[in-house]
C-alpha cells in the first residue's frame, strides 16, 4: 500500500492520487473477484432461477413489453434453468433493465443479448446477477424506481400473460383448501352382481360456495357438456348417459361441513350403500355420506344388456383434496425421495415400509411406484394392483384414495412450491433489481477505472493530463459513490483486495519507472475502450482480460 502511494507522489496533486488509490483498489478488487466469485456467481445463478421462479417475483410488465427476446424462447431457457418460465423473465428483466439504463446508445451488449443463444443469455444473467447481498438499501429504492409497485403489478399483467398459467393455478388450490370437494368414480360391484354398471369418466367437483348444490341426472344435450374435472370450483350438474337415471335424480349438498345426498324424486331410485332413499318420484330427506360410500342411481332395466339401460354405481370420495395439497406426509415423502440419490450419506431414518412386502421402500436402486396420495411401494409389489381389471382406476391399498392412472399429467407448478416462492419473492425481487442495478452501475465503473487507472499513474506529464484529470474527477465522483456503497456492504472483499493490491504494487514497483511504459497506456487505453463495451453484458470479461494485460505490458519492459 505504502509503496503505491510513494510511487504516485510524483503527481502534482495529492488528491487525485488518493482517488487513484480508490480506483486502483476497485480495480484490483475487480481483478481479485473473478477467481473467487465466479463460482459463487455461477452457483448463485443456478440457484436463483429455482427460488425466484415465481412469476410474481418479476415485474411482468418488463417481462412482456421490454423483453428483447421472443416469447418462444421461454421453453428452452426454462429447460436450462430447470425452472419454469418465470426464471427467464427474471433474466430478461435484468437484461432489458441493464441494457436500457446502462447505455441508451445501444452498446453491443444489447445486440449481443438479443442475438446470443439462451445459454449466453444465461451466462449474462448469471454474471449480471452478481452481488445480491450488497447495497440493499440502494437496491430497494432502485426497485421502487424501476418497478413502481412490485406487488400489484404482477397481478394485472399475469392475467394477460400466457406464461402466467401457474399463477392462476396458485389461486385455485388456496381457495379450495377451505372448499368442499367431492369425486365420483365408477364402481363395479364385484360381489353382489356380476353385471357391470355404467362406465363413466370420474367426475370431480369443488363447490364454489357452501350453499351450492351438485345436481345429478340424466345427461342432456341442453345442459351442455360440463367438464368432468374442472380445475376451478364448480357446481356444474353431473349427467349420466343412462335411461334409468331420471332427469332430476339426486343432489349432493354440503351442509355443516358434511356431504349429504338427497333423492329429488327419481323414478327408479337412489341407493346409498344398497339402501333406497325414497319411494319412486318422492323427494327424500338428506342422508349424510362419507368417503367410500356407494351410491347407485336406478336399477338395471331389461337386464342392463344395453349400456343405456344400465344403472350407475358411484363410489363417492369426499373432501380428499387435502391429499392433493401439501401436507406433512407428502412433503416428508418428497424429502425422502430427494434423499434417494445421496448414497451412503443419505439418512434413511424416516424410511417407510412398503405395505405390500413390509420391506423398506425409498431406498436407492429400486423401482418404486408412488400414488397421488404419496404412498409409495416397490413397483414389483404394487404392480398386481395397478394392472387389475379396474385398470385406469387405482385404489391406494393404504388409504383407499382413488387415482385415475390414465389422467392427464398435470405439469403445472406445484402450488406449494409457488407459495414458498411467494414468501421469498420480495427478497428475490429486490435481489434481482439490486443486482441489475449493481451490474449497471458497476460495469461502467470497471471500464472507467481501468482506463483511468493507467493514465494518471503513468501519463503524468502528458498534455492530455488536464483533460484526463477532469475526466478522472468526474469519473471519480461516480467512483466514490460507488466504492462507498460497495464498501459499505461488501465487507469481505476489501480485505482480500487490499492484499491483492499490496501484492500487485510490490510486483509492479521494482521494474516500474515513470518514463518507461509511456507508450503502453495509450495503446492500452484504446484497447480497453474498444474492449470493454462488447463485454458490457458480462462484467466478468473485462476484468479478466484487462488484468493480465496490465501486468504483461509492464513485465515485458525490463
Amino acid at each position, binding site marked *: 500500500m505504502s509503496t503505491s502511494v510513494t510511487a504516485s507522489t510524483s503527481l502534482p496533486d495529492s488528491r487525485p492520487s488518493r482517488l487513484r488509490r480508490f480506483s486502483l483498489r476497485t480495480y484490483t478488487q475487480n481483478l481479485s473477484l473473478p477467481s473467487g466469485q465466479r463460482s459463487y456467481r455461477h452457483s448463485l445463478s443456478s440457484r436463483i432461477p429455482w427460488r425466484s421462479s415465481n412469476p410474481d417475483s418479476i415485474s411482468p410488465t418488463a417481462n412482456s413489453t421490454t423483453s428483447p427476446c421472443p416469447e418462444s424462447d421461454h421453453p428452452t431457457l426454462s429447460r436450462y434453468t430447470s425452472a419454469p418460465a418465470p426464471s427467464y423473465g427474471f433474466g430478461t428483466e435484468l437484461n432489458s433493465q441493464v441494457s436500457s439504463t446502462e447505455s441508451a446508445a445501444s452498446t453491443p451488449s444489447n445486440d449481443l443479448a438479443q442475438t446470443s443463444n439462451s445459454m449466453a443469455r444465461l451466462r449474462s444473467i448469471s454474471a449480471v446477477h452478481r452481488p445480491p447481498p450488497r447495497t440493499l438499501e440502494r437496491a430497494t429504492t432502485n426497485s421502487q424506481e424501476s418497478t413502481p409497485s412490485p406487488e400489484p403489478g404482477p397481478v394485472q399483467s399475469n392475467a394477460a400473460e400466457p406464461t402466467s398459467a401457474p399463477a392462476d393455478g396458485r389461486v385455485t388450490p388456496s381457495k379450495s383448501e377451505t372448499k368442499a370437494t367431492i369425486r365420483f368414480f365408477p364402481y363395479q360391484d*364385484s*360381489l353382489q352382481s356380476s353385471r357391470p354398471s355404467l362406465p363413466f369418466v370420474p367426475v370431480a367437483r369443488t363447490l364454489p360456495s357452501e350453499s351450492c348444490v351438485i345436481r345429478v341426472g340424466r345427461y342432456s344435450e341442453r345442459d351442455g357438456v360440463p367438464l368432468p374435472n374442472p380445475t376451478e370450483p364448480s357446481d356444474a350438474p353431473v349427467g349420466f348417459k343412462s335411461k334409468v337415471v331420471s332427469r332430476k335424480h339426486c343432489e349432493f349438498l354440503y351442509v355443516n361441513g358434511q356431504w349429504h345426498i338427497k333423492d329429488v324424486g327419481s323414478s327408479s331410485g337412489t341407493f346409498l350403500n344398497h339402501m333406497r332413499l325414497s319411494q319412486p318420484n318422492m323427494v327424500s330427506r338428506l342422508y349424510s355420506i362419507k368417503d367410500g360410500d356407494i351410491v347407485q342411481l336406478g336399477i338395471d332395466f331389461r337386464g342392463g344388456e344395453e349400456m343405456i339401460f344400465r344403472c350407475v354405481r358411484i363410489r363417492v370420495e369426499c373432501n380428499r383434496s387435502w391429499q392433493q395439497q401439501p401436507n406433512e406426509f407428502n412433503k416428508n415423502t418428497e424429502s425422502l425421495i430427494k434423499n434417494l440419490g445421496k448414497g451412503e450419506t443419505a439418512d434413511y431414518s424416516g424410511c417407510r415400509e412398503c*405395505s*405390500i*412386502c*413390509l*420391506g423398506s421402500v425409498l431406498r436407492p436402486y429400486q423401482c418404486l411406484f408412488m400414488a397421488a396420495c404419496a404412498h409409495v411401494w416397490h413397483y*414389483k*409389489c404394487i404392480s*398386481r*394392483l395397478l394392472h387389475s381389471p379396474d385398470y385406469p382406476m387405482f385404489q391406494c*391399498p*393404504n388409504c*383407499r384414495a382413488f387415482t385415475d392412472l390414465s389422467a392427464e399429467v398435470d405439469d403445472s407448478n406445484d402450488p406449494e412450491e409457488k407459495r414458498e416462492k411467494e414468501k421469498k419473492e420480495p427478497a428475490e425481487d429486490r435481489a434481482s433489481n439490486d443486482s441489475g442495478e449493481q451490474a449497471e452501475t458497476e460495469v461502467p465503473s470497471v471500464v472507467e477505472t481501468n482506463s483511468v487507472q493507467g493514465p494518471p499513474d503513468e501519463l503524468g506529464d502528458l498534455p492530455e493530463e488536464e483533460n484526463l484529470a477532469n475526466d478522472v474527477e468526474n469519473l471519480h465522483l461516480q467512483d466514490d459513490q460507488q466504492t462507498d456503497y460497495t464498501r459499505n456492504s461488501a465487507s469481505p472483499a476489501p480485505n482480500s483486495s487490499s492484499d491483492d493490491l499490496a501484492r500487485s504494487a510490490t510486483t509492479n514497483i521494482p521494474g516500474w519507472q515513470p518514463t518507461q511504459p509511456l507508450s503502453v497506456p495509450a495503446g492500452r487505453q484504446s484497447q480497453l475502450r474498444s474492449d470493454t463495451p462488447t463485454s458490457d453484458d458480462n462484467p466478468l470479461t473485462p476484468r479478466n482480460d484487462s488484468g493480465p494485460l496490465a501486468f504483461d505490458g509492464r513485465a515485458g519492459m525490463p
Partner: protein
Amino acid sequence: MGSIKRISKELTELTESPPEGITVELADESNVYEWKVIMEGPESSPYYNGKFLVKLSLPTEYPFKPPTVSFATKIYHPNVTNDEKGSMCLGMLRADEWKPSSKIAAVLQFARQLLSEPMPDDAVEGRIAEQYKNDRGRYEEVAREWTRKHAC
C-alpha cells in the same frame, strides 16, 4: 413368492413382540401359510382364563387376498360358527374390505377384541346374537361354561 417374504417378516415380528394375549407359531415349520395362534380370553369377557386355539390360514395371494381365521377350540360367540370349522366373521377380512396394508397382527388383535365385544349385528350365529342382545347374563353364563369345558 413375494408373499413368503412378507409372511415370514410378519411372523418374526409377531414372535419377537407378540401382542397382548396372543402367541403365534407355524402349524408346520415347512409351511408358512398355516399358523397356529393361541389366544387368551380377554379379562373383561366371559372367555377369561380360556386359551383358544385359532387357526390362521393365508392364501398364496396374500397380502392381496385376506387371511381366514377360524377357532379350533369351541367357543360360544355370536361371530364364530358353532361347528367343526369355527369360522370367524371379521369385517376387515371380507374381500372388499380387505386392504393389503393390513397386517396379521392387526387381524389377530381385532379378533381378540371381538371376544370382549361381540358384534351381534354382524353375527353368524343368530341364536347366540339374539341371546347376547336380549339376555346378556345367560349368554355370559353359557360362554363361561364353554370356556371352562373346552378352552382350559
